[in-house]
């Protein structure tokens, strides 16, 4: 039989277990840092879209590069050494846009995409999964076949297709990622619900006279909620990467500065301004890592069978 905890003591119990996983905590810290950066960063940085050809291709602080510039007075190419200044701590791209500002702006974009797209996908997936498992029979069968069909499509190609049909706006991107990303969640939630339905503690609760509604609310939902949280946390990196990939190949929202877009600019100027390509990748890497660590930590914390 499962122990009865009330809501807050249960949350505290899980928190204690999660805390012991240092990597997960590090991930959480980084994510909080990202959120802060996204929220207040734009107030402290320059305008990411401000183009300034005078200051193009500046390296980051502490780096120096050689540039060949045509000197009109002497009528020949002169090599000048340009050193990075604190005005553009991470340097600028080939249009003079401040890299730090672009990264900060990208943080916002990624977090928002991560939040909303995952939200849509997980919500949809949970709804479909629970409904399918609850009704069972023909409904379940049909829904699962439909899920199979959806899962068969190579997602990326579908993104590309739809964005091309409907135009590259952030809203479309978020909606498309959400509408195509529910299948994994649906499957997991459905199988969990199915197995929960027949588990002995449910039968015991029924034998003790609990009503359906009570069973669903106090037994099924809490068990599924923890799964939902883990799924959501582990889905966010994929979503963020998907948006970044789309921006990278040029199908992102042109009005928005996202990490993928910066990386694209960096790739096109690999020879002259290599720093532009490195920064967004590092951010993406650590963000994905942070969410993966946190998700793993949460999963271990929620699994009653693993000793922490």
């Amino acid at each position, binding site marked *: 039989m499962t122990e009865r905890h009330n809501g807050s003591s249960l949350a505290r119990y899980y928190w204690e277990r999660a805390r012991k996983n240092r990597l997960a905590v590090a991930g959480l810290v980084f994510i909080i840092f990202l959120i802060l950066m996204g929220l207040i960063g734009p107030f402290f940085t320059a305008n990411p879209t401000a183009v300034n050809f005078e200051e193009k291709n500046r390296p980051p602080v502490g780096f120096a590069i050689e540039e060949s510039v045509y000197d009109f007075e002497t009528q020949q190419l002169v090599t000048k050494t340009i050193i990075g200044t604190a005005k553009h701590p991470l340097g600028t791209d080939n249009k003079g846009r401040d890299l730090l500002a672009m990264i900060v702006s990208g943080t916002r974009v990624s977090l928002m995409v991560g939040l909303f797209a995952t939200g849509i996908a997980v919500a949809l997936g949970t709804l479909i999964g629970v409904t399918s498992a609850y009704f069972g029979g023909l409904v379940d069968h049909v829904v699962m076949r439909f899920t199979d*069909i959806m899962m068969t499509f190579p997602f990326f*190609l579908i993104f590309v297709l739809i964005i091309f049909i409907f135009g590259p706006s952030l809203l479309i991107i978020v909606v498309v990622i959400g509408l195509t990303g529910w299948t994994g969640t649906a499957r997991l939630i459905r199988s969990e619900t199915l197995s929960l339905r027949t588990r002995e503690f449910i039968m015991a609760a029924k034998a003790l006279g609990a009503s359906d509604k009570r069973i669903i609310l106090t037994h099924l939902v809490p068990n599924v909620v923890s799964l939902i949280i883990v799924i959501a946390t582990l889905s966010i*990196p994929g979503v963020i990467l998907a948006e970044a990939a789309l921006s990278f190949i040029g199908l992102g929202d042109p009005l928005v500065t996202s990490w993928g877009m910066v990386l694209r600019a960096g790739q096109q100027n690999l020879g002259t301004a*290599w720093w532009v*390509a490195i920064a967004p*990748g590092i951010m993406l890497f650590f963000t994905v890592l942070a969410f993966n660590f946190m998700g793993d930590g949460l999963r271990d914390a929620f699994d009653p069978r693993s000793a922490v």
Partner: protein
Amino acid sequence: MRKNWLRDYIIKRLFYVVIIAFGVLLVTFTLVRIGPSIGATHPADKYLASMAAQGQDVSQAIAAIEARYGLDKPLYEQFINYAGNLARGDWGWSLSTSMPVIELIKTHWIYSAQLIILSSIFAAGAGILIGILSAVRQYSKTDYIATFFSFVGISIPNFWLGVMLILLFSVQLGVFRTYYDTGIPVFSLANLRQLILPVITLGTGMTAGYTRYTRSAMLDNLRKDFVRTARAKGLPERTVIGKHVFRNAVLPLVTIIMFDLGAIVFGGAYLTEIIFGIPGLGQISFNAIFADDYAVVVTVVLISAFLVLLINLVTDVTYTYLDPRIKYD
């Protein structure tokens, strides 16, 4: 006896494949046909737009175009024509390259295939080996390093990795060229050489995943009782691990590997082709999108979907065949 049942199972699965294939066709077709009517670019929009700008009457032109593309017929009829054409080998006409789509596919599929196959072999081989080693030497230095690398490998955005590799090896060190040369024959060492960076790009994430899954599957089985029995029989350790433990661990692994192959690899391959300029199906469909060439895009999507279906089928059958305990009903 088991063979009969296996055969029946395959037939049943093929039946499902047909149903799902039909569903895939339907969804793709719907998407494509809906597109032009919601303000996306119609095959001849630009032309029509310029005509309209010149004050010409476009309604006749529109009617002609619609008749030409069969757009004036009811939707279900269009679908039947469409499906029928596909079955007959008429996969449409590529407007941007002026050749039948099927010709385009024929010349370019080999580039995608070589990339995907090489990367998969590399990833599966490296991943499984490292995973086994990691599991057998759990908690040792080897294990920690391998686990660290697999975490890193999974988290690195593969398109960024590609760019970084180009930056390092092509731009800075000049070891490899920055573009893919199609002049080099496919089955040659030189071709293999220029595929090194793309394969690393596509394969790293895959390897990391396989390492993790293999390690966990091996660990699960290493502590099972039959391992102790195998040792008690006097079997050398390499037989215990390589034959007994591995054979049991392979079951869930097969599913995961094949599923990865189907679903995720295609997206990664797409990006890798674009980054390195490899003219595979991903690259040409990408170009087709910007050239308003629907036929190509749709065909590539369908091909990918069917490949995934096929791979899933093979996976299911393989899994069923490998595990003597399974009897699906």
